[in-house]
C-alpha cells in the first residue's frame, strides 16, 4: 500500500478525530475555565484565559482554602491503596487455585463468582452496614474504623472482576513451565510466586489499576459509610462542593480539576496496561 491519502481514509480520520474531540474537549474546557475570573465563564467560556484578560488562580486558592483537600486525598489514598493490595493478593491466589486445580466444587465456585459480578451494590449494602455496625466498625465515630468499614465491602466488590480477569491470564501461562519447576523440586507456592506472578505480571497490573480507580471513584459505598466531615474522601468532598458552591462555577471547575489530576496521572503513566489487560479478561470472560 502506498502513502497516498484516499478520500475514504480521510473520512475515517475525520470521524475518529471528531469523537476524540468529544472525549477530550470537555476536560480541556473545564481546565481552561478553572483559571478564568469569576463571572467571565458565563459570558465567554471558549477563549484561553491569559494574564491580563481573565486569568486567575483565585479559584484554586479558594478551593484549597475552604475545603480540606489534604485530608481528603489522604483518606482516599488509604482506602484505595488498601483495597488494591488486598484485592490483588486474594484474587491472584483464588484465580490460580480455580484455574489449575480440578475439584468437585470448581464449577459451583466459578458460577458463584460470575453471579457476584451481577449483584448491584445497592442489594448488599444495607445488610453489610448492619453487620459492620454490629461489629462496631461502621458509624463508630473513629476515622480509621470508618475507613476500614469502606475498605472491606469495596474489596469484596472488586474481587469477582479481578478473579475473572486473572483466570484468563493464568490460563495462558504454559503449564509445562510449572511442571518442570515442580520436577526441579519447587513447592506449589514457590511455583505461584516464581512462575505465575512474573508470567502474568501485566494482568496483575491491570487488576491493581482498576481496583484503585474504582475504589477512588466510588461514590455510593463511601457516601454510605463516611458521614463525618473529617472522614471525607476526595469523591465525597467534590460531592459536597457541588452542593455548596452554588453559582461559583469557577470554584466547581477548579475542584473538578483537583479531583481528576491524580486519576489523569495514573492513566497517562499506565494506559498501556489498563487497556491491554482489561480487554483480554473481558473477551475471554
Amino acid at each position: 500500500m502506498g502513502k497516498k491519502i484516499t478520500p475514504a481514509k480521510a473520512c475515517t480520520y475525520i470521524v475518529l478525530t471528531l469523537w476524540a474531540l468529544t472525549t477530550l474537549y470537555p476536560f480541556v474546557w473545564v481546565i481552561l475555565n478553572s483559571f478564568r475570573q469569576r463571572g467571565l465563564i458565563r459570558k465567554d467560556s471558549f477563549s484561553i484565559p491569559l494574564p491580563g484578560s481573565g486569568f486567575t488562580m483565585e479559584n484554586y486558592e479558594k478551593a484549597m482554602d475552604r475545603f480540606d483537600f489534604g485530608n481528603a486525598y489522604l483518606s482516599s489514598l488509604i482506602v484505595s491503596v488498601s483495597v488494591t493490595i488486598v484485592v490483588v493478593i486474594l484474587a491472584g491466589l483464588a484465580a490460580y487455585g480455580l484455574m489449575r486445580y480440578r475439584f468437585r466444587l470448581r464449577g459451583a465456585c466459578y458460577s458463584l463468582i460470575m453471579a457476584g459480578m451481577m449483584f448491584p451494590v445497592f442489594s448488599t449494602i444495607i445488610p453489610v452496614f448492619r453487620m459492620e455496625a454490629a461489629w462496631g466498625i461502621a458509624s463508630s465515630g473513629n476515622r480509621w474504623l470508618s475507613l476500614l468499614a469502606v475498605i472491606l465491602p469495596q474489596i469484596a466488590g472488586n474481587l469477582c472482576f479481578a478473579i475473572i480477569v486473572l483466570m484468563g491470564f493464568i490460563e495462558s501461562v504454559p503449564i509445562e513451565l510449572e511442571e518442570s519447576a515442580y520436577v526441579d523440586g519447587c513447592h506449589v507456592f514457590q511455583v505461584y510466586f516464581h512462575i505465575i506472578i512474573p508470567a502474568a505480571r501485566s494482568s496483575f497490573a491491570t487488576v491493581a489499576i482498576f481496583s484503585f480507580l474504582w475504589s477512588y471513584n466510588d461514590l455510593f459505598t463511601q457516601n454510605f459509610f463516611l458521614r463525618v466531615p473529617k472522614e471525607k474522601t476526595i469523591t465525597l468532598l467534590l460531592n459536597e462542593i457541588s452542593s455548596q458552591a452554588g453559582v461559583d462555577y469557577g470554584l466547581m471547575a477548579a475542584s473538578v480539576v483537583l479531583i481528576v489530576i491524580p486519576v489523569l496521572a495514573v492513566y497517562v503513566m499506565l494506559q498501556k496496561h489498563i487497556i491491554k489487560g482489561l480487554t483480554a479478561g473481558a473477551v475471554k470472560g
Partner: protein
Amino acid sequence: MNSSSTLYKRKGPLVVFLVPAFLFLILYLYYPFVQNIINSFSDISGLGSASQGLNDPWYANYAALFNDSKLRTALGNTVILTICTVVFQVGIALILALLVDSIRVGAQLFRTLYFFPIVISATALGLMFNLIFLYPSGMLNQLLMNLGLISEGIDWKSQNHFMATMLTPVMWQYVGFYFVILVTGLNNISPDLYEAAALDGCVGLSKVRYITLPLLRSVLCTCLVLAITGALKVFDLPWVMFGPGMPLDQGWLTGTYMYDQTFNRGNVDYGSAIAMLIVVLGVVLSNIANRVFKPRNDL
C-alpha cells in the same frame, strides 16, 4: 488442557488459595444478598432499626411494585436507557472500532483518548456536565448561540429535554469501554482470512458484512450482556446531575429510585424488593441476549 498434572494432584494447598477470597465473598456478597432477599419480605422501618417480622402478606412489597407509578416511570426510563445503550453505545463503539482497525497511524492514540472518560469518577463527570448543560449560559448554550442556532439559552434539564441530557453523558462515558473490547476482538481475527476474502473479491463493506461481523459475534454478545446489566445499574451520574427524580418525578431510573426509597425515605424493605427486581431483570435480559446472539459452538 489435559486434566490436572501431577503438580496439582494434591489438593491441600487449595485451601490457602481459595478460602481467603471466598470468605470475603461469602461475608460481603452472598450473605448480604440472601439477607437482602429476606429483607424484601420483612417489615423494616428505618436503616438502623431491626426487622419487625415478616410483612403481612409476606409478598406485600412485591405487590406494591405493581401499583407504584414512580417505579413504572423508573422502569420505562431504564428500558429507554437500555435500548439507547445497546444501540448507540455498542453501535458507535462498533463503527469506531472498525474505523480504527482500518488505520495504522494513530490507532494507539485514539484508543487512549476514547477510553479516557471511563477512568474519571461520575462525581467529577456529573459536575462537569452540569457546567456544560448549565442554564442559561453553559458551554452548550454558549456554543449554540455563538453558532447562531438558538437565540436564547435552552434549559436542558427541563421536562422537554431531560431524557437526552441524562442519557448522553452515560452513553458517552462508556462508548470507549465497548470500543476497546471490540478492537481487541478485531485484532484477534486472522489476517489470512482477509487475504483469502480479498482474493475472492470481497473488500470494503462486504468484507465487513460477511467476514468481520460474523467473526465478531461472540465479542458483540459479550458487549450486549455487559451493556444491559450495566444500564440497569446506572446510578451515580444521573444522581449527581439530577438528584432525586428531577424534574417532577419524571427522571427516575431503577437505580436512583431504589437509592431514594432506601436512604432518603427509610423504606428499607421496599428498597430491597426493588434491588431484587433489578437483579432479576438483569439475569432475564442478559439470558435473552445470550440466547438470541450467542453463536452456537458447532458453527
